[in-house]
């Protein structure tokens, strides 16, 4: 064996590509992408159906939540503590993967609005997705990857109720419940963005919490 062959994996210029591939596989990113595309497809099909006013407004939020849950759960590491000491790439890999999954989900959800009446349009879907993803990432950092779906799901229920309250009052107007705010509401966009930034920072710096009792892979 030569000295070149024995060099640590991270040092070579072609190695990060392999590292990225392995990292994506360990986070089940291909499955996550497939699930996101499936969500967008089902939403696109559902939007062709005739919904009453409640359903038409609430339906996109449900699928945005599903995509956000997938992104948050994809942060779960199957390796736990040993992975933390393997190199300096980890924060970048986490950020890049989460960012890429969020971007893919945003594109998929926006595409679901093509030729359909997506409530709020693509900007609203992207805003809601970002905020929900932020909640999911924070949950992943606190509770662990497999339980990261709890935060977005609980928030989804509050969002559904807030949309309902637009008719039956008293209307919920706080920008922190952004799904119920109009697309052009700057405060709601800022709140969703702040939560997304906080979630990304938490995941980049700490990663999903290692769970002593892990859930399903």
């Amino acid at each position: 064996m030569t000295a070149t062959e024995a060099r640590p994996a991270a040092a070579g210029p072609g190695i990060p590509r392999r590292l990225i591939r392995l990292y994506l596989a360990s986070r089940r990113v291909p499955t996550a992408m497939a699930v996101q595309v499936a969500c967008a497809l089902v939403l696109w099909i559902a939007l062709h159906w005739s919904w009453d006013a409640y359903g038409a407004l609430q339906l996109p939020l449900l699928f945005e939540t599903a995509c956000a849950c997938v992104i948050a759960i994809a942060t779960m590491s199957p390796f736990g503590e040993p992975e933390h000491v393997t190199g300096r790439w980890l924060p970048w890999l986490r950020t890049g993967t989460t960012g890429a999954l969020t971007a893919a989900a945003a594109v998929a959800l926006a595409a679901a609005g093509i030729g359909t009446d997506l409530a709020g349009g693509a900007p609203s879907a992207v805003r809601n997705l970002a905020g929900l993803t932020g909640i999911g990432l924070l949950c992943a950092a606190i509770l662990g990857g497999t339980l990261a779906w709890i935060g977005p799901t609980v928030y989804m229920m509050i969002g559904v109720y807030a949309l309902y309250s637009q008719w039956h009052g008293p209307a919920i107007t706080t920008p922190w419940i952004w799904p119920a705010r109009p697309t052009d509401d700057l405060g709601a966009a800022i709140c969703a963005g702040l939560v997304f930034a906080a979630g990304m920072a938490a995941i980049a710096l700490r990663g999903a919490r290692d769970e002593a009792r892990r859930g399903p892979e």
Partner: protein
Amino acid sequence: MTVTAETAPPRPAARRLPLAAAGRLLRLELRRNAMLWLLPAVGVLFWYLAYRRTMALPPMWNVRAMSMQGTAIAVFIPTVVGAAAWTASREAGRGLTELLGATPRPRWARQLVAWAATTGWALAGYLVCVGALYAITARQAAWGGPLWWPAAIGAASLPALSALGFTAGALLPSRFTPPMVAVGTFVLFEASLQLIHGADSAWQVSPLVAGPWQLGNSEGLATFYRYLPDLPIAQLIFLVGLTAALLGVLGLPADAGGRWLRGSASAVTAAGILAAGGAATLAGTGRLDPHGMIAIPALHDGADDRPVPYTPMCSPAAVPVCLHPAYAAYLPAVAGALAPVLDEVAGLPDAPTRIDQAATMYRERGGGIDVDGPTGAANGVYRIVLPNQLPGPNMTIAESADTVRTNTGSDIVASVVGTGSDAQRAVTAAILGASDGASGSAVGLAAQRFSALPDTARHAWLAAHVTDLRAGRITLEQLP
């Protein structure tokens, strides 16, 4: 006998009943179940989404219990389904399937215990939440007792939701399964509500439905007549059947247990599917009964069609306003709103001697529901319907009283003094305290003049001239 034989304690396993091991397993599952950690979130959601909304409604059992049913179940759908899916897929996620497969206990039995633990925590949380809501309503409600059927449907939904999540998690063990099945179930429930078009829709078997879907929270339901348990019974059969079918599916795979066990699982699955399908079919035979509830002929008890006996609550006045005791909170406001009119017309010919609240009648027409309130005078009794007995946005007590004054007050005056002539319009405006016509018009000036009279003088003039006034023989100039 040896020392060993004398002192050695009997082996615990030898004395244990078979159920003791299951109990121990259940205790372990209860301690480490994900649903336990979700209960605070469920409590907050219940308070924010169900409790606040329900308690904002009038303190009437029918309104609060029927409103609570749908919102409480909606709160539990994603949390229970997600927690159950997570619990079911945990075994595979930790790579323990093969290891646990070597234990003497069948896989199906282990799964049922884990499902029971998830369901148990969910039920405990539900009972605490609904118990608090019912306890406070019991202190506030003026009449009647708790409606248990809506609470029972909510409780029966939890094992079914848990079974749904558990089966999905066991059959598709993946990190993505819990949120997908949780959100997916919520979408399915929401979609099922879109399919309800009329009282004969099989989709009413959804536990989110507490009554005719188009009516919403109507105070007119289940007050003068009984709450019909027909639809809840069908829903209960459906939920039990669904739970059995889903749990049975868990026992079908080859590694679930022995032949006898899998045979039992097949039988349970088949029975569950039959029960759920039968219940949905029953719900599809429903019809709207005249009192606003869903009646299912095969489950209907004719005794439930009789009106509920009650003693009305009446205001202490010359012409008393009498309401159903469930509406006791409305009595002071409604009696106060009608008092000026009733004091004015009391004792006059054709004036009512009593105001009574009537029950609303319901009839399905086209895609909607017509609600009729038999208002008007008969034998000296004037019958009214409060606005919240009718479909539409819920009004506060003060808003309801204002609406009654506007509608019923003018009807009562019109029935006594007549309508059409200028003098009748002026007298009506004076009694109702409303301006009639443009300011400064002849009718308006006459109304101001008449209303400026002392109460006794006005009443005495009306008593002497109401017959002529109603016959149109009084002119504006003849009004005092």
